[in-house]
């Protein structure tokens, strides 16, 4: 294992902390909660369990299918056991997927089918991580990517998945046309010119109107980006955030609770030669933050002092990389977590963030994940959280082995009070009436859904709860 001079300095400083605590200190630092209880691998009928990525949602589908053609998909939608729910990478924390009917994978409907000018037609089963190199081979790129790129395109569109950038829309904001398979066995095309209401409704529709089979996406010429990551005091980040969103192509930051610091990340276009990013190390960083939690949760001042001692050199030494955007904008996330994310009016974002950090540091000393803060440009999809104006997102994560109910009790009220709309795939407790108050076209969406799927073949219990209640 190579350890740089800078790392050696960290090691020396941090070593003193743990050596002082001795073997018991090492044991406490390394403590990892037990694996959460798992459901049975199969149910009484022998159906194998499906669980989401973090493990908090599960079901036992009677049927699991991966159609290889539109005709096959249309037949399944017409005849398969309901509820029929599409699944991609299972990264949603809300129960969008669980079904005891049909679990539908679009993995066999993946890839880029055509590039025409600046638009690409893509099968909805394409994983975002595969779309980057597929477009790059044609000299094109998606304008933006989310933090995680394991999702299928269909899943990302359906839940309004997004990246960061004041002038960059969520992925569905760059869709110019869709092909939708409906429960009556038809395939319907829609765009701003053809079936425009369906187009505006279907871009973000949770798999409840039909199954998105293909999307036509606006793309941009493939460019290299310059990535810069640095730590600085949280207050300095808050003071500079708006200016950074205004001047950088992509800007986001992570407030690191109990440290008084924030990790800033910018990406800007460049013609510099490539300087690839090193191996993923975020999971080790999280292990370190967990160790600080384990050792020092009894005292915020001690925890903060220990963290600042360890991080002092990093504050002065940003890390940089230059590469194709698809290689830099997303990150491996091998440490599983649960997450709540709300999208707030941009002018409320930073005040809400300050309140969230203060609340966590006052009430929840077990939290160690950094809090992600991003900015997203508006679009006009009916159920887009970014409909009507720019939004700033705040995402609070908890380790998958830790308790997460506090998100509903402590964090959600803050984010709602500041006008937030929840990410469709992330933890929230909102009901139909709440969504009706947040989305001006909610009733129009419900009416369209009823017309396309009157028997609710695409609705599981959660979706019935918000669409039929």
């Amino acid at each position, binding site marked *: 294992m190579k350890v740089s001079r800078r790392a050696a300095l960290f090691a020396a400083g941090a070593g003193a902390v743990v050596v002082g605590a001795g073997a018991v200190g090492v044991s406490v630092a390394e403590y990892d909660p037990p694996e959460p209880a798992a459901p049975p691998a199969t149910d009484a009928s022998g159906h194998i369990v499906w669980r989401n990525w973090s*493990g908090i949602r599960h079901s036992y589908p009677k049927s699991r299918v991966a159609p290889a053609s539109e005709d096959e998909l249309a037949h399944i939608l017409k005849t398969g056991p309901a509820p029929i729910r599409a699944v991609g990478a299972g990264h949603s924390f809300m129960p969008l997927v669980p079904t005891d009917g049909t679990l539908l994978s679009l993995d066999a409907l993946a890839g880029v089918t055509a590039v025409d000018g600046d638009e690409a037609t893509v099968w909805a089963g394409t994983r975002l991580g595969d779309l980057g190199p597929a477009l790059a081979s044609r000299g094109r790129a998606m304008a933006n990517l989310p933090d995680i790129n394991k999702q299928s395109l269909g899943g990302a569109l359906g839940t309004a998945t997004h990246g960061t950038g004041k002038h960059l829309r969520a992925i569905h904001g760059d869709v110019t046309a869709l092909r939708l398979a409906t429960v009556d066995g038809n395939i319907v095309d829609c765009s701003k010119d053809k079936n425009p209401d369906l187009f505006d409704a279907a871009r973000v529709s949770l798999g409840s109107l039909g199954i998105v089979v293909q999307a036509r996406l606006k793309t941009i010429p493939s460019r290299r980006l310059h990535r810069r990551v640095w730590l600085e005091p949280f207050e300095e980040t808050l003071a500079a955030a708006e200016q950074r969103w205004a001047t950088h192509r992509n800007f986001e930051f992570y407030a690191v609770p109990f440290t008084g610091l924030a990790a800033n*990340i910018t990406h800007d276009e460049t013609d510099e030669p490539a300087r690839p990013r090193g191996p993923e190390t975020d999971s080790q960083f999280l292990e370190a933050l967990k160790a600080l939690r384990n050792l020092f949760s009894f005292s915020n001042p001690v925890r903060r002092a220990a963290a600042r001692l360890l991080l002092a050199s990093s504050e002065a030494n940003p890390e940089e990389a230059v590469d194709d955007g698809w290689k830099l904008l997303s990150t491996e996330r091998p440490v599983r977590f649960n997450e709540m994310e709300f999208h707030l009016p941009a002018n409320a974002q930073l005040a809400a963030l300050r309140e969230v950090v203060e609340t966590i540091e006052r009430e929840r000393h077990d939290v160690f994940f950094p809090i992600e803060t991003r900015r997203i440009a508006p679009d006009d999809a009916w159920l887009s959280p970014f409909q009507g104006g720019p939004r700033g997102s705040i995402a609070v994560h908890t380790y998958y082995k830790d308790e997460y109910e506090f998100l509903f009790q402590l964090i959600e009220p803050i984010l709602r009070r500041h006008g937030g709309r929840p990410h469709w795939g992330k933890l929230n407790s909102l009901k139909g009436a709440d969504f009706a108050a947040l989305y001006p076209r909610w009733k129009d969406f419900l009416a369209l859904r009823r017309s396309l799927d009157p028997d609710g073949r695409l609705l599981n219990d959660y979706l019935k709860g918000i669409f039929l209640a």
Partner: protein
Amino acid sequence: MTLDALTRAMVCIVAVAALSGCGSGPPSAAELAALKPADGRLAGLYEHSCKACHATPGSGAPLVHDHDAWAPRWAKGLPTLRDHAILGFQAMPAGGQCAVCTPTDYERLIRFMADQEDK
């Protein structure tokens, strides 16, 4: 949050085990990209569900045909590994998020990745 120096140093402090265990190393990047099961259907499942992590250095997953990484896992026995794959375990999400894999598919995929197909 990619703070190389910080994270490497912190690993030295809080995870003593991270300082040990240097082995013969995983397959090269070219090998990782090229390796796939001989069976066409199984190769499709691997490409869609396993490869994203098990052929990506730094993902936390044991890399395909990385014998040093797989040896202690294989020692737990195939039924245990299959159950971990189905239910999820540590960084491994349940089922590898394969929507159509059967228990037998998981066993065959594990055998392939551990390079134990003849066992």
